């Protein structure tokens, strides 16, 4: 059970003056239950890449396998693939259209051709998973706040009960509280349902905290593909392509330069706290 990309190339506007490589020889394999962080500068090809994984875009050349099956083979059921590999786009405004939140979440399972009771049961479950209060279910999705709209959008995909959930910058434009809540809910889905998660984000802090593997895209090519600590070791190269390491990593680097014997591969605030307290001879459990 995995998603595998082999030599995937994608060219925008082939044969016109606008021709441009969006993906160049991308290869990877994502095992079930992984939490992947996908990072890259704007225009690096990450959004193009994720649209390949559920067959919305077709690679100019190369192959994508889902659970060992070539998704480009004749007669492959793309609709079934899209309900297994759920993709949540960045702007909830692009998908909300129904008169109320609940019916909007029902849209996905309805397209799967499920019976009415099943559709509604799934919609209720999905809305609870994203933590949207029940009193909002009958409201128009257009009256909600940004964070609530985002939840409805995620629920709309979750209701299809996918095995893989891809989220394109789910936290963009949210306040810190809304961001943490959404990320915690995604993390819960990963832990409790063993869902494979691919999280596209600009925030290195978020990625470092949740992902167990990071893929870095640059100008259509995959630059790094490794666990967070390893990727952030290359923070100088990341800076060169317009990215960075988490801020806490810079702090521990500075500390180390000033002679503090601290591990400079720390990527989360929590780790840093433990390490610093240990250095001061104190236990983390103390307040």
């Amino acid at each position, binding site marked *: 059970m995995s998603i595998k990309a082999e030599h995937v190339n994608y060219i925008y506007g082939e044969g016109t003056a606008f021709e441009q490589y969006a993906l160049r020889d991308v290869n990877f394999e994502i095992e079930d239950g992984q939490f992947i962080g996908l990072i890259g500068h704007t225009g690096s090809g990450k959004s193009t890449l994720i649209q390949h994984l559920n067959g919305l875009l077709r690679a100019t050349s190369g192959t994508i396998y889902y659970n060992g099956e070539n998704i480009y083979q004749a007669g492959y059921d793309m609709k079934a693939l*899209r309900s297994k590999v759920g993709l949540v786009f960045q702007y909830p*405004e*692009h998908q909300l259209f129904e008169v109320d939140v609940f019916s909007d979440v029902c849209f996905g399972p309805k*397209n799967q051709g499920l019976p009415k009771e099943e559709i509604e049961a799934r919609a209720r479950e999905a809305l609870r998973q994203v933590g949207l209060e029940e009193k909002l279910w009958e409201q128009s999705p257009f009256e909600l706040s940004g964070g609530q709209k985002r939840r409805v959008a995620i629920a709309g995909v979750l209701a299809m009960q996918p095995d893989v959930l891809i989220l394109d910058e789910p936290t963009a434009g949210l306040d810190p509280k809304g961001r943490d809540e959404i990320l915690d809910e995604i993390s819960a889905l990963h832990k409790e349902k063993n869902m494979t998660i691919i999280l596209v984000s600009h925030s290195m802090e978020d990625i470092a905290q949740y992902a167990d593997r990071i893929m870095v895209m640059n100008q259509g090519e995959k630059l790094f593909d490794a666990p967070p600590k390893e990727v952030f070791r290359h923070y100088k190269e990341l800076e060169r392509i317009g990215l960075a390491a988490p801020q806490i990593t810079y702090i521990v680097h500075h500390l180390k330069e000033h002679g503090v014997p601290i591990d400079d591969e720390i990527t989360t605030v929590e780790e840093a706290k433990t390490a610093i307290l240990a250095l001061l001879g104190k236990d983390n459990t103390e307040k």
Partner: protein
Amino acid sequence: MIRDITLGQYYPVDSLLHRMDPRTKLFGTLVFIISLFMANSIVAYVVATVFLISAVRLSKVPFKFIVRGLKAIVFLLLISVSFNLFLTPGTVIFQIWFLKLTWEGLRIAGFMGLRLIYLVLGSSIMTLTTTPNELTDGLEKSLGFLNKIGVPVHEISMMMSIALRFIPILVEETDKIMKAQMARGADFESGNLIQKAKSMVPLLVPLFISAFRRATDLAMAMEARCYHGGEGRSKMKPLHYAARDRITYVVYAVYLVVVFVLRNGLTF
């Protein structure tokens, strides 16, 4: 899929036609359209073809790219050609049931088809070589005389340029919305007419909402910069005719005269 619409799209290369004053190109398109309706002989169509092909060559836009614009009118073309082909009275070549294929029908259908194709190709060349802003600037200046009889030319051309400016944005938006709904299992292709119309709702609602939001945002941004219509407003890039434009006008005149003479003097 939806990106295939070339009608009204700008093709960014550097060519004589791209550098030409938009008014010259507008007028040229008008001249070409008039000539198409005057042409009634094979020779006249040959002249029009030469005119069109020279314009295509001068524009440096790949011919393949221009022809793509024809996709939009294939249906219309088929209907009008087949109606003319079979329903024109005259010398019968052969007959199937009530459908008579006549020499006159063949001739009219041929001219009709060519005229439609040339109309689209001719106007595509203009839009492919002229940015929407240039185009509306050109229109505003050419129609400036209407201001005197109370037509708000500037306002109309501003609306036009805004509308044109929004086409690519809305096309892109449509693409994104379609993908977002397809990711939820929406199907825009299969089904009968009623099902297809129904499947448009999840596409049109977000599209309209976004269009209205963009419109209010733009109006606010314009007002924030004290936009108050055309009165006393100067241009950042005023239009000036160059030598190439004057030469082009001479070419237009010669072309029109030739087509006019062919219509009244010669018929094949």
